């Protein structure tokens, strides 16, 4: 099934990655969008239809869970499985950035030699 495809492979999309980052502490669903924007200094913006769909997928995949179920103010937090997956993904992304840094240094070196 297409549902949660990206989650099964344990490679998170950028939107899902940022949403999970906001969920390390309990948070109301509707506050996540604002929190993501603050966290990323406005680089990552998530629309409401995307957020709602991703939240439902994360819940089905048991990466997040509902804390208290007052209908209008649902609060979510990471499950142990969710914590595991976000930790792995942070490490994976950090490694990718490190690899990129070496390449960047090299490319900038070429640039300054040419000038």
């Amino acid at each position, binding site marked *: 099934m*297409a549902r949660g495809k*990206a989650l099964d492979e344990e490679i998170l*999309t*950028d*939107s899902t990655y940022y949403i999970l980052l906001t969920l390390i502490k309990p948070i109301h*669903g*509707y*506050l996540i*969008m*604002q929190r993501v924007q603050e966290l990323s200094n406005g680089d990552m*913006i*998530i*629309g*409401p*239809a*995307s*957020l*709602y*769909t*991703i939240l*439902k997928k994360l819940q089905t995949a048991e990466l997040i869970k509902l804390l208290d179920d007052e*209908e*209008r*103010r*649902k609060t979510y937090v990471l499950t142990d499985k969710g914590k595991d997956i976000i930790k792995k993904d942070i490490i994976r992304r950090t490694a990718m950035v490190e690899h990129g840094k070496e390449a960047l240094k090299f490319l900038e070196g070429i640039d300054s030699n040419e000038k």
Partner: protein
Amino acid sequence: MKNNKYLLNMGLAFDEDRVIKRLNKLSKEGWILNRMTLFRYKLTKAEAKELIYAMDYKDLKESKDEYFQIFESSGWKHMCSYGPFHFFSALPGTVAIYTDKENYLEKYKKTKDLYFKSLIISASLLILTGLLEKLADNTIIDRILFCVGIISAAIVMPSLMVTIAYLLRGKKGCRENQNK
């Protein structure tokens, strides 16, 4: 002076983009969306101001309030719903309701699947009644089969058209994404 205005509902599969554009334009003329039915959209007189509209397709069960609250908190006001179709409006410049490609495309995939299912069911019924009719010599059974056949035929055509409309839209969507 008339206080209501109506737009024909030609099926969101065919003219979602057209309806959205019309609604955006009409907001500047002081008409806002009030209700959607199977046949038409009802607009009522309001203060003239520029709005942008968006439609989402979502089967909501128990988390209705949460869904609308998430939209509300990002600036999208719920205008009306018809079954799984939900209309929202916002001020120009508001963040799009879908910001990722995967879930945006899924919106159309879900609706396409729904119509595809009804196409398969009605088409198989139609073929089945056609075959059975050849065998039936009893007039009552024959009549019943005829009725089932007519109903199936009535469902096959729109289902087929809607499915094709979504397939074409999917192709268009893919091309648009490649161009980005």
